């Protein structure tokens, strides 16, 4: 587990630099990758379904990214994108391709659907946090306007 957290840090870090982020932002961004991976493996260890584990991971890393982006006054994408990379189901994609090539179509469909489901779970995880934060801020703004009047 510790190994995974360290390696996902470096994986995110390398992508942050490849996306041309400055050094300070890159080092902070990479923690998001670790956090996402930690929650993902935690979910897997607890024995939940893999899509739910992916969902947890995406939830945690997006939450971290939103907070950091607001503190550092940078767009959220700079934080979410590199942090999300370790969770992208590249292995599932590979297995799908391998199975469909070797003629195991049942296996290929199963792997393909799983991969789609994992990406969907990631998307929903990100979406939930984005929506919550947006709602929170628009509610707060409304409350401020209300109090002024």
């Amino acid at each position, binding site marked *: 587990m510790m190994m995974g957290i360290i390696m996902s840090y470096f994986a995110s870090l390398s992508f942050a630099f490849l*996306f041309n982020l400055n050094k300070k932002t890159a080092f902070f961004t990479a923690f998001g990758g670790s956090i996402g991976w930690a929650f993902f493996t935690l979910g897997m260890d607890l024995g939940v379904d893999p899509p739910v584990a992916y969902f947890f991971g995406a939830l945690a890393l997006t939450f971290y990214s939103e907070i950091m982006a607001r503190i550092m006054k*940078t767009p959220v994408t700079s934080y*979410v*994108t590199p942090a*999300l990379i370790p969770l992208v189901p590249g292995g599932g994609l*590979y297995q799908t391709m391998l199975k469909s090539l070797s003629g195991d179509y049942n296996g290929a469909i199963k792997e393909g659907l799983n991969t789609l489901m994992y990406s969907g779970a990631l998307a929903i995880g*990100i979406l939930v946090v984005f929506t919550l934060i947006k709602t929170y801020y628009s509610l707060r703004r409304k409350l401020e306007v209300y109090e002024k009047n």
Partner: protein
Amino acid sequence: MDNKRLIKLASWAGKIILESGGEIYRVEETITKLMIAYGIKDAESFVTPTGIMVSLTDEEGNVISLIQRVTKSNVDLEKVSLINSLSRQVAIKHLSLDELHEKLQVIDERKPYPLLFQLFMAALSGFSFTLLFGGNFADASVALFIGIGIRIIQHYTREIKLNGIFINILGGGFVAISSVFITKTLPFEMHLNTIIIGSIMLLVPGIAFTNGIRDTLMGDYLSGVSRGMEAFLIAVGIAIGVGMILGITGNF
């Protein structure tokens, strides 16, 4: 106020964000915010992943509009962030159009990290992903070199403006052929699958995926769909590249 110049500068700012991998709503917001900051009351922008349309109405009711075609260049999240803070700056303190032009020029001409540093980061990426997916040290060391190779391919194919899907087929093919070759020739205990999975992560469509989600969420369904499609096609491209080589060499 020189409105013609303003609309040009505003859409230039938008173009930089769009090229560097920003979301649609951020481009639209930046363009209208910039124009409003210079005292225009009626400013509109409509942006898709491949083009920007801006229009501005001045006090006498004259309409000026501008269309700009945008082609993808390299992802550069730093530029997105810089333009973002520039548009905040403009809203607070008044910059003249000349100053704005100068600042945009500086941001637009920013160079990415030197190639050597990028190669180092690509190596780190291959190495850490292979370990992350359960490879041993030998696997990771092989992926390190494959990572460098992928980055070199990406760099030079982008320079000659090759089609994005073809770049990924090429990249996938390179990953497969070099990992098959290395695992067959070197006498260490290595896992072909882990090396390939660890190395193809460098090709994975991260930006298209996150931006697709964000665009969909902000109500820009058109670009949400097209970016989702882009991510899907990139994934298919990688699979074709890897699959073709593994098929030819008979490795599955």
